[in-house]
């Protein structure tokens, strides 16, 4: 029961503010709504007992990436942009196609959900109490089988950092 309430609460916030995010004129408002969506998603992670990811989402996504976004929005003056037309020419085509995609995938998920085992080859969900401590589990996985990927990810970050510094230098 509580699970359900929490899920629907966060899901409603996430979808609602995501919609607001893509419709606001001011980029700062958009950023705030995206932040809300991300926080709501973090709540859903918590409801899924992914505590570590919950806090990673908050620290990295909200505390890091979104701050960066807001910082840049303040640096580049968007008042002009806010007064211009917000949507591109292909907006109706894009909308229809996206909704078609949504319908397709949604129908698939809906029908799969009715199959035995939720259609996902699931033998039964592990009880929340039986899960290993989450941070340890993720660490085992990150530094075990996915060690190489982890290192590649760190390399990616390094490259991105250098790239961003080069991009943002005064003279390009």
């Amino acid at each position, binding site marked *: 029961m509580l699970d359900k309430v929490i899920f629907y609460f966060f899901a409603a916030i996430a979808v609602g503010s995501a919609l607001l995010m893509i419709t606001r004129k001011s980029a700062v408002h958009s950023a705030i709504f995206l932040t809300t969506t991300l926080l709501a998603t973090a709540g859903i992670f918590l409801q899924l007992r992914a505590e570590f990811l919950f806090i990673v989402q908050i620290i990295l996504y909200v*505390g890091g990436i979104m701050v960066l976004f807001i910082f840049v929005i303040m640096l580049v003056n968007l008042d002009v942009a806010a007064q211009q037309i917000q949507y591109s020419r292909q907006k109706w085509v894009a909308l229809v196609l996206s909704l078609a995609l949504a319908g397709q995938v949604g129908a698939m998920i809906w029908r799969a959900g009715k199959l035995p085992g939720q259609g996902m080859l699931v033998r039964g969900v592990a009880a929340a109490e039986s899960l290993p401590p989450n941070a340890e589990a993720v660490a085992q996985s990150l530094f075990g089988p996915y060690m190489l990927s982890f290192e590649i990810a760190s390399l990616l970050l390094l490259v991105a950092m250098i790239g961003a510094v080069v991009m943002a230098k005064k003279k390009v």
Partner: protein
Amino acid sequence: MMNHLYELLKIVLASPYTLPVIYGIVIVAVLPLVAGYVVLVERKVMADMQARLGPMRVGPHGLLQPIADAIKLLLKEDIIPEKADVWIFWLAPLISVTAGMLALAPVGIGPAFQIAKDIDVGILFIAGISSLGIFGIVLGGWASNSHYSLMGALRSAAQLVSYETAAGMALVSGLLLGGSLQIRALVEEQAKQGVWFVALAPIAFFIYLVASIAETNRAPFDLPEAESELVAGYMTEYSGFRWSLYFLAEYANMMVVGSVATTIFLGGWLRPFSSVGGAAGRAIDTVPGALLLGVAAYCLYRAPKQPVTVQKLVMVAVAGLCAVVAAALLAPVFVAQALWMMPAIHGAFWFLLKVGGYIYLFMWLRFTLPRYRFDQLMRLGWYFLIPVSIVNVMGIGIALVLHWERGMNLALALGLTTLMTLAVAAVLVRAELKREEQLRQAASGDAYAG
């Protein structure tokens, strides 16, 4: 009817959510008052350091000053600048204060008083949530539509992002030693090892101290609200209640960083010499009670010297309060039946004492040091604290490996790596001094050439 109520009460009491909710309400309700009194203490400390008396008018020795201040702030006009982005302007202080209070959730004020007890990522939770407070600052500064506010907001964003790295690295050093993210496990580890981590990782503690001052925007890193430059930085356009929310957030953040430092480096709710038992331990356990009794006695001694009857009464009341708390602290030591209260009450006392000491350090620095300039602040963060903190984490990692795999004495290994880190720090400081010297020569050379 009564039966039903009784049943309901039983269910509520049995629920695992009841106690945390009560604790939460207590924290939210008491925090503004505590913050107010921290401000009073700060003003008194400042006055003491500056050869004056501080607030003396409202209540004896200004004891009621925070309440007067709060009433004043609540009654002030709430000004919203023209052309401000109104709803962000409203929202921003709320974000800051919510983040500050929420971050207190996993903090263990003593072994018993903790809202989120078994949260798996305790320290990370605190660090992450308190980093959300920056949104309030940045958005508030932007929404005010004022250049001072905007500059304060930008400074604040850059400063927090820069120093969070160093603070995080310092925390990692502590977490490595503790081997867990959980608050309780960290403190228990310190109890087991019989030593506070500040002794094992002094450099990490120092870095966390500096970085936490920067993160809470306190002097000498208070550039986002630097009064003499930016008027009040991001708070320039705020007034009345909203302004006081920012203020509350700042003090909540101070308590948060104080709690984190206490938990990781200063042994949490452990008393000094926590491994000492027997008669000596009993003697240490009587110290808190005796201390408070001393305060009570001093209040009683001062009471007749107050000029007004009301002030005399308040003084006596304060003495009484101290005496009651002292009794509560002493009871478990001397009365066997009350022994079960011992960890909770004494733990809370020691924890709050350490947090208080940490905050006192903040105040002391604030009244002693001038303010950094923004580029100097950034240099300190990026060229000194972050490299040193990274080297420090590596050093502690190496020491732990030596300890676990090679069976080396932990203290010896840590000592060696600490020396290594100090050497790196010395090299960095030397390079910085050299650069400054060069810059100065260049500047004065220019001056004479031009």
